């Protein structure tokens, strides 16, 4: 009797569930964006569009200033990612290399940030941003987004920094680098996969965030994509094909960024510098 490789089948099924769960809604949105509203409401439902239309995409750009929303999203996500990765890298390096007092306590406090329910931060954040005059600016979102992603980014970077042999930094310092120079010239290039992973996490978090964006940016000119897309909804109507087209437009930039960075997220860079 042939033996059935059960564990492999289980892994395959689990993988399929994850992939289907992720892709089916995205494919559904793409297909919906190519249908007319009439076709969408017709029964029986169709999977592939009967008549392909790009009208919804035109409406996305004419009905609302989506390019402004996109520019705001790109700016806020990029700035918060840069800030988050820079601070997280320094924090992770300090926790891994410097003899800090109570590093365990620092890590616990850092993780506590990730535990705050976002809703509990909204009112104080709103008041702070209003007081310092940052409401309806990119910075009202950049700072909170950077801080909210810091715990996970720091943890990711800690795990990568721990793998870098100390002697590489010592060699860099003898070669003429300061400690920060060694971090920049040696540690960061060698942990590029970790830095890009942390960057992608921070970027996606910032790109997707809705609640703070809705609260801290009430002007159309400062809105980001997740909030901007809700503006396509009318008082009594839900133009799903147009909303779907807007979602596709919102997905494209982040997909490109992830695809570009994924190339860099490769391991094995540290191989060969040390013995072995």
């Amino acid at each position, binding site marked *: 009797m042939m033996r059935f490789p059960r564990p492999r089948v289980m892994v395959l099924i689990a993988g399929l569930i994850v992939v289907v769960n992720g892709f089916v809604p995205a494919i559904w949105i793409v297909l919906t964006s190519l249908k007319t509203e009439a076709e969408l409401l017709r029964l029986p439902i169709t999977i592939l569009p009967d008549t392909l239309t790009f009208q919804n995409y035109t409406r996305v750009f004419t009905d609302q200033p989506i390019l402004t929303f996109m520019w705001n999203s790109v700016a806020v996500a990029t700035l918060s990612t840069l800030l988050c990765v820079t601070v997280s890298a320094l924090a992770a390096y300090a926790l891994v290399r410097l003899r800090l007092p109570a590093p365990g306590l620092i890590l616990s406090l850092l993780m506590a940030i990730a535990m705050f329910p976002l809703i509990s931060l909204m009112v104080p954040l709103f008041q702070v941003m209003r007081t310092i005059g940052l409401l309806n600016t990119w910075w009202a979102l950049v700072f909170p987004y950077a801080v909210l992603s810091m715990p996970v980014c720091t943890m990711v970077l800690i795990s990568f920094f721990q793998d870098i042999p100390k002697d*590489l930094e*010592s*060699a860099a*310092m*003898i*070669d003429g680098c300061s400690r920060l120079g060694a971090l920049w010239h040696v540690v960061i290039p060698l942990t590029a996969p970790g830095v890009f992973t942390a960057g992608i996490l921070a970027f996606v978090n910032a790109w997707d965030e809705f609640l703070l964006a809705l609260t801290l940016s009430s002007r159309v000119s400062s809105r980001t994509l997740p909030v901007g897309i809700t503006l396509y909804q009318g008082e009594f109507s839900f133009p799903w094909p147009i909303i779907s087209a807007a979602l596709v437009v919102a997905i494209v930039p982040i997909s490109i960024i992830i695809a570009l960075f994924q190339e860099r997220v490769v391991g094995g860079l*540290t191989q060969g*510098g040390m013995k072995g």
Partner: protein
Amino acid sequence: MAGVEIRRVVKQYGRVEVLHGVDLSVRDGEFTVLVGPSGCGKSTLLRMIAGLEGITGGEIAIDGTVVNDMPPRERDIAMVFQDYALYPHKSVYDNMGFGLRMRGAAKSEIETLVHEAADILQIRHLLQRRPGQLSGGQRQRVAMGRAIVRRPKVFLFDEPLSNLDAQLRAEMRVEIKKLHQRFGTTIVYVTHDQIEAMTLADRIAIMKDGYLQQYGSPDEVYNRPANRFVASFIGAPPMNMTPASVSADARMIRLPSGMDVTPRGANLSACAGRDIVIGLRPEHVSLGDDPARTPVAGKVELVEPLGSETQATVRVGDARFTGRFSPEAGLKHGQDVTLGLALDRAHFFDAETGEAIRLAA
């Protein structure tokens, strides 16, 4: 070029003191080897010279300037690490030129100096490769290339050969010696291998438990060890150590198990009436009754033929003596033999303190 002065240097990690006031003076252009067993503090001391470890007490001076608070990059030193520590993301050329680049050297100067160093180490054909594409020996050459390219005041080597196989190690030892002869730069070299220490050093600093035991030329530490530890650490096979007591008139030595021997050729008056440890190098143990040597009877316990010579351990009462004998002697396990101990060449140590007892000539 420059000397390195280490004055009463102390290192503490929290409450644990690992170096207890070490004094060491490395002369300009000298090749000093720090040697000792694991945990003796030799690598810590080297890293303190490099500026990679802080100094708890005392001071270190390079070329006459106290460098205690100077960061590594300002000390004008170069270091070769045990695990090479080559930058994996850079080519061999960039690895070697990195230090020059950090110091603002012009591109053309970097190119000239890197090519010059690569020619000396015969690695020019490897310049465009990454460290991951090199063998262990090649990586070690690149690590040395990175060090020599800057022409620093002092070279520091931290067990650079310990990851190489025996043949490569011997080859690289020669290369390092040649480099020192060529550049004449001051070198501080850490190893736990006493053969490396003996073959390379102008002077050897032997350390144990954070204390400097002796600092002298290979000849001095081999032939005039300061204490029992130095005597047994330097030399392979190690020095035979036998506890004994000397009679009040210094004419009789009592070996373990009560065997009394009359010493020939050695004036033991400095040891009269004392409990001592006799240290005798294997080359000072011979077979047969030699009138100049002190005879003892024993039984062969272990025979190790090495081709050019045979090392054998002979049990004499409760004591054991290892000697280097001619293969023609045809020693067999269990054979009864008479050994001739050259006590005039022996070393005598206080049984309690382990300090060497100097005999009257």
